[in-house]
């Protein structure tokens, strides 16, 4: 067990490597109830969400979700999040555990005097289970009447799972097909148990924070607080694709537009180790003899059979195939910048 964002969470059940492989080849079940939920409702809810986030929430139909960021005036993320449109004037923001309170306070103060938009932290009303992996759909389908095949990526529906009312979202943080299930906390254990029983023949395993980290890193999904924070802009973090330039004014737009025009000076790149050793978060990164940055995330990638990581490097030194070095226990281990994502799931 470990402490993460104020929650006691298991790092692993059967072992990080074992759980990682289960998610890539069958399915894994994660308890991610630590994630925070913030709801915004009212006649001006859409305008409010548009003003505080970088992506274009107006493009969401009810039943759709999108990846976005809560931005500072400098264009840096207070947090990254998923925005769900529950109803025309009702949005659900799923935020990182460590940032729930900060995000809520940020949103509340940003929306002061913003018309008819109520902000409520509903984190305690939801437990969140993530069922991830290529066999997720068949496992979940046995426990719900919701037609999962019709549920496209980044859409959600409400229904029952194992007799428990749930919001079923086709989203995840592993790079695999999968679902995230919002249920009432008092019903979570029953759903967890029912899923593990139904999924056991298919190879479903409970999975912890360790595998969640190695899976998301292989899929090049950023972790807020490591790969980006309030000192790195969305463009530097490689998240220009969640900046909706044409949607109108939002917090941070001006700074981001200026940076886009001038060009970024540094950016987040992915690298793979060429020399033995694993680059861990915080290790120094060198271009030639010069220390140019730090590793933000690094791990052994079980699906790839090599060590990978992410780091901020000067834009001029960030091209794919450029050699860099990582300081590992006093030596300089050679690495190579590669295209992200490191891992892409096979399309069926």
């Amino acid at each position, binding site marked *: 067990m470990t402490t993460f964002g104020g929650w006691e969470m298991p790092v692993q059940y059967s072992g*990080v*490597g074992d759980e990682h492989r289960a998610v890539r080849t069958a399915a894994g079940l994660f308890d991610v109830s630590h994630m925070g939920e913030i709801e915004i409702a009212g006649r001006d809810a859409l305008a409010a969400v548009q003003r505080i986030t970088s992506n274009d929430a107006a493009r969401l139909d009810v039943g759709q979700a999108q990846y976005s960021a809560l931005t500072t005036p400098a264009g840096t993320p207070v947090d990254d999040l998923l925005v769900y449109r529950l109803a025309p004037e009702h949005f659900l923001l799923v935020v990182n555990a460590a940032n729930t309170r900060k995000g809520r306070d940020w949103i509340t103060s940003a929306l002061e005097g913003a018309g008819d938009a109520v902000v409520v932290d509903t984190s305690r009303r939801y437990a969140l289970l993530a069922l991830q992996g290529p066999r997720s759909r068949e496992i979940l389908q046995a426990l719900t009447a919701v037609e999962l095949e019709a549920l496209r990526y980044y859409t959600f529906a409400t229904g029952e799972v194992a007799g428990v009312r749930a919001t079923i979202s086709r989203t995840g943080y592993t790079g695999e097909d999968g679902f995230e299930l919002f249920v009432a906390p008092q019903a979570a254990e029953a759903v967890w148990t029912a899923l593990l029983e139904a999924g056991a023949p298919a190879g479903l395993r409970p999975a912890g924070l360790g595998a969640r*980290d190695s899976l998301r890193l292989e899929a090049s999904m950023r972790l807020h607080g490591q790969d980006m924070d309030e000192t790195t802009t969305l463009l530097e973090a490689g998240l220009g694709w969640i900046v909706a330039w044409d949607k109108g004014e939002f917090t941070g737009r001006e700074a981001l537009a200026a940076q886009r025009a001038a060009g970024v000076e540094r950016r987040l790149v992915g690298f793979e180790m060429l020399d*033995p050793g694993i680059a861990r978060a915080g290790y120094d990164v060198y271009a030639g003899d010069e220390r140019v940055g730090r590793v933000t995330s690094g791990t*052994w990638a079980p699906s790839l059979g090599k060590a990978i990581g992410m780091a901020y490097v000067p834009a001029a030194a960030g091209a794919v195939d450029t050699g860099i070095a990582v300081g590992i226990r006093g030596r300089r281990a050679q690495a190579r910048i590669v295209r992200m994502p490191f891992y892409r799931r096979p399309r069926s």
Partner: protein
Amino acid sequence: MYPADRKYTKDHEWIRVADGQGHVGITGYAQEQLGDVVYVELPAVGRTFAQGEQFGAVESVKAVSDLYCPVSGEVVQVNEALADRPETINGDPHGTWLIVVKLSDPGELDALLDAGGYGAHVA
């Protein structure tokens, strides 16, 4: 659970001594804490270390753990097979040695834990 034919450090290394040389490995407890071992960094033959000095590191998917030399001495052998099969440490931690050290002061062994003492240490 912990073999009685060797001594243990509080940092979870074991050393099994015969004829003035000690085979050094990590304990089942250490292996369990680390999880899947994916890389072992070992010193070159001929290096000398003081008791308690770091001689290498073991990397698993989730963490890196430093290795400390249980005794002072010179490295006379390194288990090269671990470069290709580091996971043998998970399968058989007490049967998988990392290095062999030629002891410069066998008296240092007295400061180490026996199997019972180590078992109590990690209980």
